[in-house]
């Protein structure tokens, strides 16, 4: 039998255990401490922000070394003004645009509608902030397909640019692809076929050492003697394991069906282009989700490192879709879709690049009225998105893991969300389709949150 003293100690022990158990269950938190201040918002002084546009629609008409301007582009500008143009082959072209009042509130779109013997179609592409690394996913250099890489240097110093190419069969060793000097204020165009001839699925990495540059890839299609298809491909984001293409517009089967009977039109199929630029093979799941709430189409595929993979996405009903690609290795991705107008009988294609999710504020100039803004929320929380178009602001709620499309008017478009969302605009005209990204202000355009320690 335990003696009485031990028993008392045991009771004391039990009481102590019971006491702390009660404190734990009741969540005894008698103290509180204010969270420490951590970050400083810095407003940089006298910020320089220029966005640049590539310029005219080009084609090599006479020979492959001389560019002919086969279509002029217009620039729609919001919150900014022209400051200069690039010198392209000794002539001014393109545009350098700076902000009017605040560095974060400027956007511009370059667009062109062309219908002649050489090129037919519609293109629209946002003008962007020059950067040092760009991934151009799109185009083709097979027979009748043309791709023009335009690199513009709007800064005051020369840029030394290195190009890397990938194709369906792996990395392409291109001649004279490194050490390209783009002079200050100059814009130079190159035929992609010169670096990657007869390549069905090219991906280009433009790396600039020194001054940042703006690179775009103009793609055009001529089937036999019929031109049909024009777009200007802009850069996707740096490789990531989860990428989202905000919008793909699947054309009506009734309009494109008859076309596809002709084997020349086989490239009107909607496709997803993927590349693992790294060294490791991986697996990816492509989820194509309709905006109208239908069942998503899921495709799983193995990825070979360094080999560009084009996945045709057929068997879709007509309408708008978002494409989400999850991969176990970082990838870059873009999609292509086609439009055909029975009225103008122009067949056009558009490249819709993957876009990172951001809360904004994101801005764009929409060149055509009644365009479609797509908002994709792949997050776990519902997003409240303020969309300002035609000078009016509306609030749109986008549930978790769902997407919404909003019709927007011509001119300035601003999108602000409370959680990161993926946005894109589809512009459709008689002469064809195009997609626009909504660029966000680059880090530090107006204020920088600095965590110093």
């Amino acid at each position, binding site marked *: 039998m335990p003696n009485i003293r031990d028993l008392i100690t045991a009771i004391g022990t039990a009481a*102590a255990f019971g006491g702390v158990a009660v404190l734990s269950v009741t969540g005894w938190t008698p103290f509180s401490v204010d969270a420490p201040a951590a970050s400083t918002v810095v407003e940089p002084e006298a910020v320089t922000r220029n966005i640049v546009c590539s310029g005219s629609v080009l084609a090599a008409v006479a020979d492959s070394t001389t560019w002919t301007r086969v279509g002029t582009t217009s620039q729609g500008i919001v919150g900014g003004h022209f400051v200069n143009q690039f010198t392209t082959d000794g002539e001014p072209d393109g545009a350098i645009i700076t902000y009017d009042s605040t560095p974060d509130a400027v956007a511009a779109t370059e667009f062109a509608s062309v219908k002649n013997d050489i090129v037919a179609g519609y293109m629209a592409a946002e003008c962007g902030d020059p950067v040092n690394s760009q991934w151009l996913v799109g185009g083709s250099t097979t027979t009748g397909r043309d791709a023009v890489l335009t690199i513009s240097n709007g800064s005051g110093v020369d840029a030394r640019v290195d190009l890397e190419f990938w194709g369906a069969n792996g990395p392409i060793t291109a001649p004279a692809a490194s050490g390209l000097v783009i002079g200050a204020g100059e814009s130079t165009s190159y035929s992609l076929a010169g670096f990657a001839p007869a390549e069905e699925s090219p991906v280009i990495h433009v790396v600039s050492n020194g001054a940042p540059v703006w690179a775009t890839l103009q793609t055009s299609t001529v089937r036999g003697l019929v031109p049909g298809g024009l777009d200007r491909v802009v850069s996707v984001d740096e490789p990531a394991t989860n990428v989202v293409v905000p919008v793909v517009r699947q054309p009506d089967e009734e309009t494109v069906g008859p076309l596809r009977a002709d084997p020349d039109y086989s490239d009107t199929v909607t496709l997803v282009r993927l590349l693992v630029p790294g060294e490791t093979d991986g697996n990816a799941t492509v989820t194509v989700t309709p905006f109208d709430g239908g069942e998503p189409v899921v495709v799983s595929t193995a990825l070979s490192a360094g080999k560009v993979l084009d996945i045709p996405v057929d068997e879709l009903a007509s309408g708008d879709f978002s494409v989400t690609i999850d991969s176990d290795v970082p990838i870059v991705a873009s999609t292509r879709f086609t439009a055909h107008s029975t009225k103008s009988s122009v067949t056009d294609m558009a490249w819709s690049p993957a876009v990172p999710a951001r809360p904004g504020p994101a801005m764009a100039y929409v060149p055509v009225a009644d365009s479609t803004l797509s908002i994709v929320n792949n997050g776990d929380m519902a997003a409240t998105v303020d969309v300002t178009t035609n000078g009016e602001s509306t609030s749109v709620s986008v549930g978790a893991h769902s997407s919404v499309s909003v019709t927007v008017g011509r001119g300035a478009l601003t999108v602000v969300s409370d959680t990161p969302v993926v946005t894109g605009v589809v512009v459709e005209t008689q002469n064809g389709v195009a997609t626009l990204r909504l660029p966000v202000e680059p880090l530090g355009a107006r204020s920088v*949150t600095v965590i110093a*320690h």
Partner: protein
Amino acid sequence: MVSRDSVAVVVVSRRHPERLTKALSSIAGQAPATSIVVANLSGTEIAVPSGVSIVTLAESSSLSDAVTTALDGLDKDLVWILRDDVEPRAGALDALLAVFETSPSVGIVGPKQLDAEFTAEIREMGESISRSGFAVQLAEREMDQGQYDRQSDVLGVGEAGMLVRRELWNELRGFDAALPYVDGALDFCYRARAAGWRVEVVPSAAVETAVSSLEANLGDVSAARVVREEAKARAHRVLSYLSGLVAPFRALTLILGALVRGIVRFAQKRPHPFADFGGTVAGVARAGLIAESRRNIARTTTQPIDRSRLFITRADMTRRRALERDAQRALRESRDVEPRLGFGPLGAWMSGAALLVGLILGHNYFGASALSGGGLLPLSGSISDVWSAVGATWTPIAGGVPSAPDGFSVLLAALATLTWWDPNIAIVGLWLLAVPMSFLAGWIGAGAVTVRSSTAFVVATAWTLLPSLHISLAEGRLGAVVAHIAIPLAVRALVSRGAVSAGWFALLAAAIWVSVPALSPVVVVAVIARAVAGRPAILAALIPAVALEWPRMLDAISTNPLLYFADRGVPTLAVNPPLDILHLWPVVPSIPFLDETVSGIAVLVVVGVAALSTIAAVAFGTPRLGGIAIVAASGVALATAFDSLPLARIADQNVTVFVGSLLDPVWFALLSGLAVLATSATIVRAIAIPGIITMVAVISATAIAIPFTGGALVSSSAVRSVPAYVEAETRTHRDAGTLVITPRESSIVAELQRGRGATMTDWTATAATRRSVAETETAVATLAGNLIVESGFDVVPAAQQLNIRFVLLNAKPTNAAVSAIASHDGLTQVGQTSNGVLWLVDTTPSEDSTHSGRNWLYVVGGFLAVLVAAIAAIPTSLPRRRIDDDELVLGTEEADA
């Protein structure tokens, strides 16, 4: 010729007049009453038998004066000196006289002195001195077995019963007045020898003395006073016997020797360590008396003394001291009968196994030159840099902020000193050895509640498996690792007795306190509880911890006292999610084949069983465990209270305290309870021991497996955290700054590194818990914010002001910020490094700023406090000489003995 009649018997009565009658009656049979003179120094009236004469002297008179006075007018050739506490045995005087009869060269004879109380014990029988002048009793406190009875020729004899030739007494002028209490007789005999006389001890003459000579002369004084008087007498004798030329040097060596002996005694925690030193100094200082003694000696000396024969040889001194130590040890051991937990073969084998497991779990760190990640940063490569952080009032974190010194820097410096040639090796070593060290700590700690090695095995193994250790190792929580190892040891030290355990506890408590300040309330509660439970002196064991932490405490009180409890080291977020505090488990368990909810319930069941076992173990004979458990429960209350407080921050992340350390004390109690109960009966042991260990291992599996699942934040790293180019440059300018900019999604992180980059010691508690953005941080932020965009900001003056020499963009060279930074004037791109893109700023490196402020009061105070505790912790006794039976039960040992 020599007869009883020629003897004058002088009985000096000073302290024991009540014994005088007995003394006189024993003398009566040996000498005629008329030859007896009583010298009364007692200050009281004393009655004497008829015929005995009496002289009264002042109380302050010395024995020698008393004898001389008593002899006045007596016409006797010999003097027999006795005291009131001395009873000569029958025939003593005759035996002494017989020597004079046969040996005319003998001047002094002395009897064998026996203890009046234990008459078979020799109190004194001849004296000598060692080569270095220590007085030595030839036989002291030994059983009289006739072992000294063949001895006769000695250097000196004691005063009690000493028979002296009158002419000698007169010639030498009695005892030296400078030696009134100690060694008077010894010195007298020495001088007699020097004057050509012989001194003999006569074993057949026996007297019984009630007290020693010293006590008889000085009274019953403190032990310290005795030591002091002996040292004083020794100094006096040694210096008197030397020539005046050598004496000053000898005086110095005397003082130095005494000082060294004092320090040794102090380190051995023996009583009154510096009494010897004080006495020596006092003795040396009496230059006048020494000179007088020397003159007196010179006057009478006729021949040198045969030192080799009469002095104690060095070898003999060594032997005597060894015997003395053995006697003391035997005495101590005779008192120390409580059984203790031994280590045994089980402990040795299992420690080996723990070492192996630790090395397997730490395989990622083999060959690492430093560790960083999570709460760890490399230490500086030089030990002096590590120590310079101790007491520093400034830290380069956040561009340089004032900072209160804290004890963690001392802990780091102490750790680093173990591998002084490369401080980081100590941290790598700790990471590799933490598992076996926890096992040893658990084993030793189990000794607080058990003497069974099987119980200790369960406690130690489970303690080693606890996730608080493995999570701490994975997340780089150096403080929590140290605390996990120190807690069981501290418990053991706290429940033990004695100065050594108190010293250990003081050091361990300080280590726990400075490593995990959140545990400091538990330490205080434990100490107070122990003080109340019969060990009040243990309160002093908190002094080192407080001495190491007071500046930080004051600093925290001036902002928010709660901030004091933030974890030490680099603040780090818990990546292994903590479980609901109710489960008492520091991490979400993931038990194979069970989902999270079921795992949580399993943990609750284990906790419940452990709690009930502990209560049962307390009720059935381990009350001490109850005390430990009650104190440890306060840790759980603290864990609840501190759980979600944002005490520290790193970049923009708020960091709370690590719950694992706060739960450690209660887990020690619970594991002890489980182990004690499980091993109490032989029948359950076979199932319970593997059962408990398996249970703890299964719910800890996630944490233990981190090194293999890749969840560890800690990894081996280079000692420097800046590019080699910067390191080369900072060799000449140690304070040159590097602004490290890391772009994020919507913000940038800007960090100003000084010299070779932030080290572990830079992250003081003040820096980790600062509440506001420091002025320098704002300046750094402004510079960084303007740098990463193309702006009109003038970089160079701002960088010059902050003494920034480099800008490092922690991003790929294709990052947009590269060209933005490059667009600013005054920057030269150095190129790409493994850490990012580097620019050299066109600033003049300023001379090293003198931010080497140091709180010397803190440094000295902390050093002294730790030194005293460390000295206390040095074990002064050899290990016990007894066979530790593993399964020893209290009480059987005495039966064996």
